[in-house]
């Protein structure tokens, strides 16, 4: 049995002369959570629309569990659960009616329908909202109904486009936990521009910029990029920068905001101990020394910026 659930090859989409997505290829295995990152207008939603058969690609193909979505859309779509950017909900229906409709359209038999609706409600914390009109629910709950309709038929692939937008912090935590849980048995593709979210729930990350993939790899690869050879130093009685640079291992020192100094050191020669010793000896008034991590944002900006300058 193949474990590849979704395979996109050389997906391209053009609107007139404007190429929105160019040659995007990737594949995803069962049980993996893929984070899809990119600045606004990078082509995230367009890619997702092509993956779910809502938009025909100009070139390239999408296979869901080996079924081509263009040649055999019905069979392929039955394996996908999709939450678009704007949750597609009929506001005049109640939560139960909406989920029952979603279940029936996705081929859940009448016999199992009630159970499927109950499970979906339970997983998204909607049980108490069963009889409420969707129109009267808050944005957060509507978002949950959107997720519930995407998972009701227990699909192989769940595709969520910015699922945590408009939720309050505790709801965001619930949804992230749910996504992690879904990752156990389904494949999940998650698009977002909230970077910590990716770090928390995803195994794989793809960064798309101007329609092209600029990064495709495991989350740990991305995390490694964050570890720079830098220390952040706080001295209340700072000497001239040259004096710190004399400490062995230190490559350069620059002043940053709030009176802190950023010390760049050679690879594998962490001078932290020596700096502390020197600082105590010379009474520099050391009050802070921390490893300086590049934030995920910076890595992200670097990746997308490099591409832009090429």
């Amino acid at each position, binding site marked *: 049995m193949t474990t590849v659930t979704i395979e996109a090859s050389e997906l391209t989409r053009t*609107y007139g002369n404007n190429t929105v997505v160019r040659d995007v290829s990737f594949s995803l295995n069962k049980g993996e959570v893929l984070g899809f990152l990119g600045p606004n207008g990078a082509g995230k939603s367009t890619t997702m629309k092509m993956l779910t058969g809502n938009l025909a690609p100009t070139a390239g193909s999408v296979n869901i569990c080996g079924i081509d979505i263009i040649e055999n859309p019905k069979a392929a*779509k039955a394996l996908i659960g999709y939450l678009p950017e704007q949750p597609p909900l009929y506001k005049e229906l109640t939560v139960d009616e909406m989920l029952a409709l979603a279940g029936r359209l996705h081929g859940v038999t009448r016999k199992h329908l009630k159970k499927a609706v109950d499970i979906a409600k339970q997983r998204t914390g909607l049980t108490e909202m069963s009889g409420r009109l969707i129109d009267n629910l808050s944005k957060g709950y509507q978002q949950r109904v959107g997720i519930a309709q995407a998972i009701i038929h227990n699909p192989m692939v769940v595709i969520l486009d910015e699922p945590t937008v408009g939720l309050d912090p505790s709801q965001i935590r619930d949804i992230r936990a749910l996504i992690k849980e879904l990752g156990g048995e389904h494949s999940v593709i998650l698009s977002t521009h909230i970077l910590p979210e990716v770090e928390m729930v995803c195994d794989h990350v793809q960064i798309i910029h101007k329609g092209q993939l600029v990064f495709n790899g495991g989350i740990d690869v991305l995390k490694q990029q964050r570890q720079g050879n830098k220390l952040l130093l706080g001295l209340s009685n700072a000497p001239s920068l040259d004096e710190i640079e004399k400490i062995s291992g230190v490559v350069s020192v620059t002043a940053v905001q709030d009176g802190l100094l950023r010390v760049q050191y050679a690879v594998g020669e962490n001078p932290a101990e020596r700096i502390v010793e020197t600082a105590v000896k010379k009474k520099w008034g050391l009050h802070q020394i921390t490893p300086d991590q590049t934030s995920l944002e910076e890595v992200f900006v670097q990746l997308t910026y490099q591409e832009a300058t090429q």
Partner: protein
Amino acid sequence: MIFAVAGKELRSMFSSPMGWVILALLQLVFAHFGFFEGVDKYYKIMSGMVRPEERLGATEFIGNNVFSMASFVMLFAVPLLSMRLISEERKNQTLTFLFSAPLSLTEIVLGKFIGLVTFLTISIVLTGAMVSSLNLWVTVDFGYIAANMLGLWLLVASFSALGIFVSGSTQQPIVAAIITFVVLFGLLTMDFYLAGDPTSVFNKISLMRHFEPFSHGIIDTRDLAYFFLFVLTFLTLTVRRLDADRLRG
């Protein structure tokens, strides 16, 4: 699958006051202006003012009054009901829900069409029942009523197919309603304006020209074929239009 979509449309219509109000108003108009006035006039006209051999039966006189009124009123009612079928879904971005489900475009369009026609059928059946109630006092020609109901049903189905197509071509329900109304009005009255030239082909595509035989109790296969093709054409065009969404984005 088709019926799941149709069921959803019906539920939506009955979950707002709109559906109930339209059904009630249709019945009120048909009953008051069609039925009661028909009965009134029948007594006035038929009691001696007409020579016996020119007299019409009660069914034909009153039935004709009700059903010609109905065809005219439906011209307003159908665009109001069909306007939101696709345009509103496009505006609220719920079309994605249907496109992502394992449904073909044909199933989506047919589902919506069947949902709307089922709703209108309720009104037609009630109207038929109203005219049939004459049977309490006179002998009613049920064949005549059945032919009229079939004619009205086919006319309304054609209106609906056109309405769905227009609704699929715009984002604004109101725009869809206005365009549907204007086009239907044009198609209905075309043969009236072109009456001077009976050989014109436009006469052949006039909706009214094909509805009329039914109101005399005549069921002609040519008319059946015309309505069938009319519905088929516009539903096919709707499918093509929705497919363009997928292709062009």
